[in-house]
């Protein structure tokens, strides 16, 4: 519960202004908390007279923290390749492991994944747990979840990281729930607190309007899914040595209640926009499906992919997996070129953390210009081809 110390409260209203949920009002010179309070703690921090505090019982089924050691990374393997985010996680995991003075392990499931182990070691893993079975060729929530849970119960890592991908975000919550472990979704920053070795997990909330740092003080492992493209992989070193641990799982763990009848790889969706360094995005301003051909040419020239606003997706010009924003994907590429996109907040939350944003729009007052690093005011049908040609020319030289 959020408690207001009536003696200390001076009714300054700072808490009211800082509350994103409208949960505090100042009445008769004193803060009053209503039912909207989520105990996020923003007010507590900003209360200069220290009149606010959060109180609550602690979960009684605490684990012995000392029994848990080591950093783990789930290395997603699908259709014969390791997802790039696994290498990024190893880069981040290496730093955490070194800060804690513990080892870094990768866990990989699949059919024919042995070869992947060497690659994971080159990218920083000290150990690789390999679960190789034809039954694992297809992704199934329950099987992946149960195997991961049983490995974690056996080995007791203190931290488990996975990519915030379709797969990671679907089965990791099941694992965390079964283990009574805390799980932070879609993190963009990870660090070890020097004083007590706790994992500090930072993630955007409210569509990126605020950031929250989260810890799991009493539960283990500390689990997080991490957004693709925000952590840097280490350069691979093929001479690195590591241990490959083959795990035989009991047949019971491989039995599933769900059956994958077919796995359809769509050519167009094959590029995952979350993994791209360069995105050329289009909105309603493109007018039709053809407009996207212009963008595709530019994207091809830049070695990037095409993304879209919801308006473009809803118009049927491009399929949903390309949608960026609140109800689409969150991306943070190096370069995001927004063409004919107004920059509505629901779109902005999905792309505002891109390193460089270029906006092309004929309306000088479009909100997208508030976000853009570089703003071009004009007709995209003129500007985009000019830019494509410019880059083409330069390449020719």
């Amino acid at each position, binding site marked *: 519960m959020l408690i207001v110390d009536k003696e200390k409260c001076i009714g300054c209203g700072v808490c009211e202004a800082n509350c994103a949920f409208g949960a505090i009002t100042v009445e008769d010179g004193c803060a009053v908390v209503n039912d909207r309070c989520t105990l996020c*703690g923003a007010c507590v921090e900003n209360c200069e007279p220290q009149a606010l505090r959060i109180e609550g019982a602690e979960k009684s089924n605490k684990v012995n923290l000392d029994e848990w050691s080591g950093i783990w990374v789930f290395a997603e393997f699908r259709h014969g390749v390791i997802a790039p985010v696994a290498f990024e996680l190893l880069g981040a995991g290496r730093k955490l492991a070194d800060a804690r003075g513990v080892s870094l392990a990768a866990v990989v499931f699949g059919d024919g994944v042995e070869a992947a182990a060497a690659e994971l070691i080159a990218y920083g893993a000290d150990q690789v747990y390999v679960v190789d079975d034809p039954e694992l060729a297809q992704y199934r929530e329950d099987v992946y979840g149960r195997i991961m849970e049983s490995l974690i119960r056996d080995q007791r890592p203190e931290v488990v990281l996975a990519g915030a991908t379709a797969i990671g975000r679907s089965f990791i919550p099941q694992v965390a729930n079964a283990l009574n472990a805390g799980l932070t979704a879609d993190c963009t920053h990870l660090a070890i607190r020097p004083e007590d070795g706790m994992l500090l997990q930072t993630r955007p909330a409210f569509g990126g309007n605020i950031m929250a740092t989260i810890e799991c003080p009493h539960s283990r492992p500390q689990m997080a899914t991490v957004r693709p493209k925000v952590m840097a992989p280490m350069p691979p070193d093929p001479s690195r040595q590591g241990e490959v641990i083959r795990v035989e799982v009991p047949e019971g763990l491989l039995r599933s209640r769900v059956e994958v009848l077919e796995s359809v790889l769509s050519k167009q969706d094959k590029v995952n926009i979350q993994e791209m360094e360069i995105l050329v995005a289009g909105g309603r301003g493109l007018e039709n499906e053809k407009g996207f051909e212009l963008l595709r040419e530019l994207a091809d020239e830049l070695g990037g992919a095409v993304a879209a606003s919801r308006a473009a997706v809803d118009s049927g010009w491009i399929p949903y997996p390309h949608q960026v924003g609140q109800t689409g994907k969150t991306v943070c590429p190096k370069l995001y070129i927004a063409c004919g996109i107004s920059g509505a907040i629901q779109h902005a939350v999905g792309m505002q953390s891109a390193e460089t944003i270029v906006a092309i729009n004929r309306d000088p007052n479009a909100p997208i210009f508030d976000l853009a690093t570089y703003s071009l005011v004009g007709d995209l049908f003129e500007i985009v081809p000019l830019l494509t040609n410019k880059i083409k020319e330069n390449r020719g030289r």
Partner: protein
Amino acid sequence: MDIIVCIKQVPDTKDVRLDPETNTLAREGVESIMNPFDRHALEEAVRIKEELGGTVIALSMGPPQAEAVLREAISCGADEGVLVSDRAFAGADTWATSYTLARAVVTLGNFDLILCGKQAIDGDTAQVGPGMASQLKLPYVTCVQKLRTMDETGLVVERMMDDGYDVVRLPLPALLTVVKDINEPRVPSLKGKMRAKKAEIRILHAADIGAEEQCIGLAGSPTKVVSVFTPKPRGNRTVFSGTPAEQVEQLFAQLRDIL
């Protein structure tokens, strides 16, 4: 087919903006809405009911005012609204929310299918659906973009993946989380609105669902928020001028370093 749809009331993000002057959240007139993904879950449930018969219960955990989204759900075709509400639930993270909703489901009794949205737009975690499935030991599939076939024994769905989609068969009872591709939600009918107005929303407190104290609210949440802060504002901004060709020249000069 008896279906439970989990619906969350969330603040409308389009209203949640950063005040550039003070760098705090400007929340004048922040309205609460039904989580957009949950609207699609509800629509799917109502369509299934229309085809196969059965009931649709809209279930929400939240403060008393969350009743509004349940009424809205009834106006869009749900038969009943159940609100799980108690001061003791405050501060729940996704673990405690999953637990609480799962206890509520057990309390409600029989069901064939639970539908959730892919994620709630306030926290964007996408963890409550799989968490509930884990609590209830149900088979589940996330990010369903299409329900292909369904009968008493099971369903065949398309699960959206990063590189395409999988066609998955699963038995009932089961839990699905859905993305917006699955359907186009209807607008409430006048009759529905009338019904919603009169409907009685059932309230369940912590004691009603047999929730253990150490599993709910802040106490039941393994994650703790250490701090909340506003992100760094974006760096320098440049607005080009001139003819399209001139602007492209200027942009190209800048991008050279990146490309």
